[in-house]
């Protein structure tokens, strides 16, 4: 009797406890909380993901990696006359780019979005004291001529390939007060996006932030003044659950509807495991992205100065099988840093497929013979052994590392694992180039982004440049430098493509880096979610969230 009563109580409690989720809401689970909601401060992935529901950049790359207008009426190009070359007072070549903002754009308080906002954002973004760190800097424009409330001409100080790629605007009528500070960093402290992110009028997208619980969740509701396609969902709730096992359990319990692949959420192995566990409960998408996993080689290491050794290292590892076994083939093997989905990609580069016999032959040619312990040595007795570092604690990286270590051992190369926490690895080891052999990590880039920071000779971090730049491999090739500079000036895609092909060829030929694979973004979506389009690049799927619906 008591048992029955307890069961009845449990049933009633369960009925009360599990309210049916109305399709008015879409609950998204992520593993990080955005540190700021200002579009131009701290360019973190999670911040951009959340903001993409609420603010729109002037232009963005779409799912087909084609640049399109989000706030403007027509994408300005050289071909349509929206962008023109102009001579600067110092005789150099600059550009004039004309943008016309869509006439019905409004901030979430009903104030029209106008060229006043454009000029305000440009002035603030060009001020070094403002602390802007967005990827497409505003200080590329040295002057803006306002034609009317919706049209303005941006005068650029030189020729840029990304001349028509511009970020979000800020609402002058709200942010002007915050921008009045005189000291460096004053704006960071005063901006309404940080102090009061639910302020009406901060957002010009289909949604606006209505609730912001630090560390817990961000709630976005429909922007009543949005003039574009009316969103299906009344609310988007972005919940932060930092432990991914708990995030997984929340998906299964129905507390969250989806885990995005373009924001920090579940790792690819967790999504693969979930798909095996619950194949019919969700829809699973694996979208190849621009995040490039690779191993940098320290060229100053005498053993690595011989290109035959570097080539042998690449021939000795079976990247195809690694990707197949660890990631079910969802992550494409990389030949260089350029993703095959990128318009500038070329397949005409050296690829180094798995060939252990060739690896051994190359090592023999370089003077290395296996010793009694199975590890190769040269005539001087130098052991073919390298320290191999990556970020400690990331299971998949460590697993990848172990697989590669055993494959190299089979080819008589010893690798000594020396992993470090991310902040040590990036704060000291790569930044100061103190690694001695190999270091494995990933970087993300934007569509068509110049490789200047990672491959140009003057971007090698050193005390002289205050350890700026990310050319951790110390690449210093005059031809590559010239190609990088040329690619940044060449606006004709047809003419730019051979320059990019040459850069990829140099990169692959020199084997200063061992390319591994491009990460895939793993999405777990509810089966009823339609109209969702992952992009695979830094302009995330929420930029088109007004098209998402439940069916």
């Amino acid at each position, binding site marked *: 009797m008591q048992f029955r009563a307890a069961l009845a109580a*449990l049933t009633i409690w*369960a009925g009360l*406890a*599990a309210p049916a989720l109305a399709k008015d809401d879409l609950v998204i689970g992520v593993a990080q909380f955005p*540190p*700021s909601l*200002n579009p131009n*401060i*701290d360019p973190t992935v999670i911040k951009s993901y959340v903001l993409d529901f609420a603010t729109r950049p002037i232009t963005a790359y779409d799912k087909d990696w084609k640049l399109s207008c989000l706030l403007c009426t027509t994408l300005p190009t050289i071909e349509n006359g929206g962008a023109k070359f102009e001579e600067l007072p110092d005789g150099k070549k600059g550009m004039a780019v004309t943008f016309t903002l869509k006439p019905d754009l409004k901030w979430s308080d009903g104030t029209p979005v106008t060229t006043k906002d454009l000029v305000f954002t440009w002035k603030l973004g060009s001020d*070094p*004291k403002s*602390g802007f*760190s967005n990827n497409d800097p505003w200080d590329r424009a040295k002057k803006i001529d306002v034609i009317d409330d919706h049209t303005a001409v941006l005068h650029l100080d030189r020729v840029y390939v990304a001349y028509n790629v511009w970020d979000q605007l800020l609402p002058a009528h709200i942010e002007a007060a915050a921008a009045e500070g005189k000291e*460096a*960093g004053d704006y*960071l*402290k005063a*901006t309404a996006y*940080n*102090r009061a992110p639910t302020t009406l009028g901060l957002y010009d997208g289909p949604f606006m932030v209505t*609730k912001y*619980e*630090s*560390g*817990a969740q961000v709630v976005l509701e429909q922007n009543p003044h949005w003039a574009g396609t009316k969103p299906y969902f009344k609310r988007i*709730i972005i*919940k*932060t*659950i*930092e*432990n991914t*096992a*708990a995030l997984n*359990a*929340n998906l*299964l*319990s129905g*507390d969250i509807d989806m885990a995005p692949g373009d924001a920090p959420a579940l790792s690819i192995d967790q999504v693969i495991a979930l798909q095996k566990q619950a194949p019919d409960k969700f829809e699973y998408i694996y979208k190849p992205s621009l995040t490039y996993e690779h191993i940098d080689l320290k060229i100053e290491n005498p053993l690595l100065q011989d290109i035959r050794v570097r080539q042998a290292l690449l021939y000795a590892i079976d990247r195809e099988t690694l990707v197949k076994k660890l990631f079910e083939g969802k992550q494409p093997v990389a030949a260089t840093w350029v993703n095959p989905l990128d318009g500038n990609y070329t397949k005409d580069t050296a690829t180094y497929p798995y060939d252990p016999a060739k690896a051994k032959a190359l090592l023999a040619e370089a003077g290395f013979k296996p010793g009694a312990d199975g590890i190769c040595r040269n005539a001087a007795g130098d052991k073919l052994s390298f320290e191999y570092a990556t970020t400690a604690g990331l299971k998949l990286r460590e697993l990848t590392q172990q697989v590669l270590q055993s494959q190299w051992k089979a080819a008589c190369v010893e690798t000594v694992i020396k992993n470090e926490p*991310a*902040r040590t690895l*990036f*704060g*000291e080891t*790569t*930044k100061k180039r103190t690694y001695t052999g190999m270091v494995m*990590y*990933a*970087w*993300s*880039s*934007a569509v068509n*982004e110049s*490789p200047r*920071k*990672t491959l140009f000779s003057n971007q090698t971090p050193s005390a002289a*440049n*205050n350890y*700026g*730049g*990310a050319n951790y491999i110390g690449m210093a090739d005059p031809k590559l430098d010239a190609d990088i500079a040329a690619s940044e000036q060449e606006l004709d895609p047809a003419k730019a493509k051979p320059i990019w092909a040459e850069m990829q060829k140099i990169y692959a030929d020199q084997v200063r880096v061992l390319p591994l694979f491009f990460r895939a973004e793993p999405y777990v979506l509810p089966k009823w979610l339609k109209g969702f389009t992952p992009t695979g690049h830094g302009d995330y799927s929420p930029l088109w969230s007004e098209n998402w619906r439940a069916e």
Partner: protein
Amino acid sequence: MRRFILQRIGQAALVLLVMSFVIYSLIGLMPGDPLDVMIASNPGATPEVVARLRAIYGLDQPLMYRYGHWLLAAVQGDLGFSRTHSQPVLEVLAPALWVTCKLMLASFVISVSLSLILGISAALRPGGIVDGIINLGAFAGISVPVFWLALMMILVFAVKLHLLPASGIANIDDGGFVDHLRHLIMPVATLALANTGGFTRFVRASMIETLRMDHIRTARAKGNAEGRVVLVHALRNAMIPVVTVMALSFGTLFSGALLTETMFAQPGMGKMIYDSILSNDFNLALSGLLFATLVTLLSNLAADLAYGWLDPRMSR
């Protein structure tokens, strides 16, 4: 007594000052600065942008200069600006503290109450069946990893039975008292279960020792009821060492519930301190750790006062 309290408050202030220096220096010794990880994953950040940001955040200044600057502002009530939250530290600290207070106070009260009941029950018949079962449960509570216990709770009560919400503080459409309570059940139960085992063992050991003392035998010989002997004469004496352990645990609970907070998505102090240290958010990490130190000092002060109540001889 007043002099004693004032003396302890003075000591606490000194400890806080020393701790602030030690923590700031230790965080400063960690490699890299807050911008390094951002730069590593974002090749678009040029050296010029990085240098500009370092200057804006004051990271181009020597560590001791930054500490001095912070200390001067802190004594005026300004704990600085959190770089990772882009908000004043106090505005980040207050909500995290509230979440932690709810979690910790509830779990502390429950685990203390449970451990008193279980510890006394076990001590009454050492080696008996009840003692054996309670010991087994206590060891299980001590041994089970918190993250596993939390995950199992989520899987059973949220995924399988749909009785409780898997995570968070409250439902977006509700947010009432009952809703908050439902969201608290699993994290509080996890923390309480994890602490009860240890506390129970202390209560049991202390009670067994006290029940063997002469004054207990005397109390029984005087004809006092067994309940009075146990609860009045024995428990009061047995609580002295137990209070010390509980006071120390209370302080660490404020900063040490990282796993529970992470598993149940409760944005409390433990998670905040952990994240701020990892991201080199000096001001926030320092304030969080100092607050945890303060709570530990205050709980020890409370324990000292409790000794006086439990055994008036100690306050003399």
